[in-house]
């Protein structure tokens, strides 16, 4: 058996496929420079090449492809937000997710499992009713459900009778689901590279050459590249890139931690979130339980994990699913997230004319990867801000026109 495998591996009949650009020198000039090789950067490149015929593009990534928050997130996909702007935007993203595997010819393991958020107070029930109505009005499947339906969907859930947090009801979002996070960025990067985009890993942007309100060149640890325009899609380090371009953003950088158990038999189908104890959970198709929660209590540019967060996630998740106390943890990790005051992204134009922003993705940006890529590509190619992302411009804060998604985001990502 091992020899058979080795023979197969070395056989010329099945050559290994190389999906990404082999390492080569940077050119002197690119039409578009994309800073950040996460899902968002790769998706922007993909849609620019696919729909707009722009392929003279370099994606500059300081580490490895997808090594930032794209490779660290808990892959909750949902569109059950509160504002019309938010719901419409994330709804379009979920639609794109459905077809991505076919489009890429590469399995992103998208699964439509449904997502359930629990309520333990009348106030939460009230806000769920509100969200359900907004969602339905905009064509997103959400409904307020009671304890019996919850018991049917998640038989192993502790409904908390006689305990500290009796569960009163839930917001059931049948469109919710998950996908393999790495595969999403790999699929986009593969599609982009096949169309001529260059991916440069281990290439860190260290400065931006801005003159008379226009960006001329991008400085990197591998030399300077001139560019027609540039876009930053760097998540946790958004403020640092903006500072290089000479402006401030309404962003604070906080770590977000998560952890995962060893794999077990499949027993939990929907994704479940419990804002009252700041925890959410899903069982991956490999059987592991992925457990996440709220952000760290203060800002930090560091991906260390803490014992406090492990303790709080463990105690919260045992409140919901007592059997998890028997399981073993495999890993705990963190990503650094670019949090905005209203929990909505910052997309579109910047104070620098040909420099675009794809930032403020905080703890919720994985689900937005396809639609951000598509709309940002349209903006870069046409110079016009697509209607879908008009509400998310950075200047909304100067007009006090925040798009408030705080209540629909906390601990449910």
């Amino acid at each position: 058996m091992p020899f058979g495998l080795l023979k197969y591996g070395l056989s010329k009949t099945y050559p290994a496929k190389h999906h990404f650009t082999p390492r080569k020198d940077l050119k002197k000039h690119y039409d578009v420079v994309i800073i950040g090789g996460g899902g968002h950067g790769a998706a922007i490149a993909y849609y620019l090449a696919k729909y707009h015929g722009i392929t003279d593009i370099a994606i500059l990534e300081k580490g490895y492809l997808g090594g930032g928050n794209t490779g660290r997130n808990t892959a909750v996909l949902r569109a059950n937000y509160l504002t019309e702007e938010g719901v419409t935007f994330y709804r379009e993203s979920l639609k794109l997710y459905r077809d991505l595997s076919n489009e890429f010819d590469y399995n992103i393991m998208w699964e439509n499992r449904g997502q359930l958020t629990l309520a333990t107070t009348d106030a939460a029930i009230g806000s769920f009713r509100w969200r359900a109505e907004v969602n339905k009005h905009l064509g997103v499947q959400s409904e307020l459900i009671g304890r019996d339906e919850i018991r049917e969907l998640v038989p192993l859930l502790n409904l908390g009778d006689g305990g500290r947090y009796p569960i009163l009801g839930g917001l059931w979002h049948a469109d919710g689901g998950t996908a393999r996070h790495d595969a999403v960025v790999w699929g986009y990067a593969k599609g982009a590279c096949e169309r001529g985009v260059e991916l440069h890993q281990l290439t860190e942007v260290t400065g931006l050459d801005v003159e008379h309100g226009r960006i001329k060149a991008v400085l990197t640890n591998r030399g300077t590249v001139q560019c027609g325009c540039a876009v930053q899609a760097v998540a946790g380090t958004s403020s640092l890139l903006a500072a290089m371009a000479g402006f401030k953003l309404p962003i604070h950088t906080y770590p977000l931690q998560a952890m995962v158990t060893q794999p077990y038999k499949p027993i939990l189908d929907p994704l479940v979130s419990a804002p009252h104890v700041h925890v959410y959970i899903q069982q991956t198709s490999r059987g592991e339980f992925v457990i996440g929660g709220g952000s760290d209590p203060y800002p930090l540019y560091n991906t260390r994990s803490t014992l406090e967060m492990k303790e709080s996630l463990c105690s919260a998740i045992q409140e919901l699913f007592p059997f998890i106390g028997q399981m073993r943890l495999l890993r705990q990790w963190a990503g650094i997230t670019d949090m905005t005051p209203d929990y909505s992204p910052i997309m579109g134009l910047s104070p620098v004319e040909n420099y675009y922003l794809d930032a403020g993705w905080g703890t919720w940006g994985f689900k937005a990867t396809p639609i951000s890529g598509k709309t940002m590509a349209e903006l870069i190619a046409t110079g016009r801000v697509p209607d879908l992302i008009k509400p998310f411009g950075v200047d909304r804060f100067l007009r006090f026109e925040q798009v408030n998604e705080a209540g629909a985001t906390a601990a449910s990502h």
Partner: protein
Amino acid sequence: MKIVPCPLNGPRNISEFAYGGEVELMPDPNTSSSEEWAEYIFFSDNPAGVVREWWCHSATSYWFIAERNTVTDEIVRTYPASELFKERVEFKKESE
């Protein structure tokens, strides 16, 4: 557990404290434009390095200032707010 040297209570666990944001100079609410005010409340340098921040020891409601490195998470120095703010900030009513 990380320890914060509180200027009032001595070394305490960080879970006893609440983070209160960067120390920033407030523009005069009576004369600043609404854009200046928006910049002050929303926009931030959010630097990677040593930052001057407000912290509160929750149990004693004591606000003080900490200089903290946002990359290494080291607390470089903590001191009473009176080191920076010598005078009381008066919020005058807007004259109409």
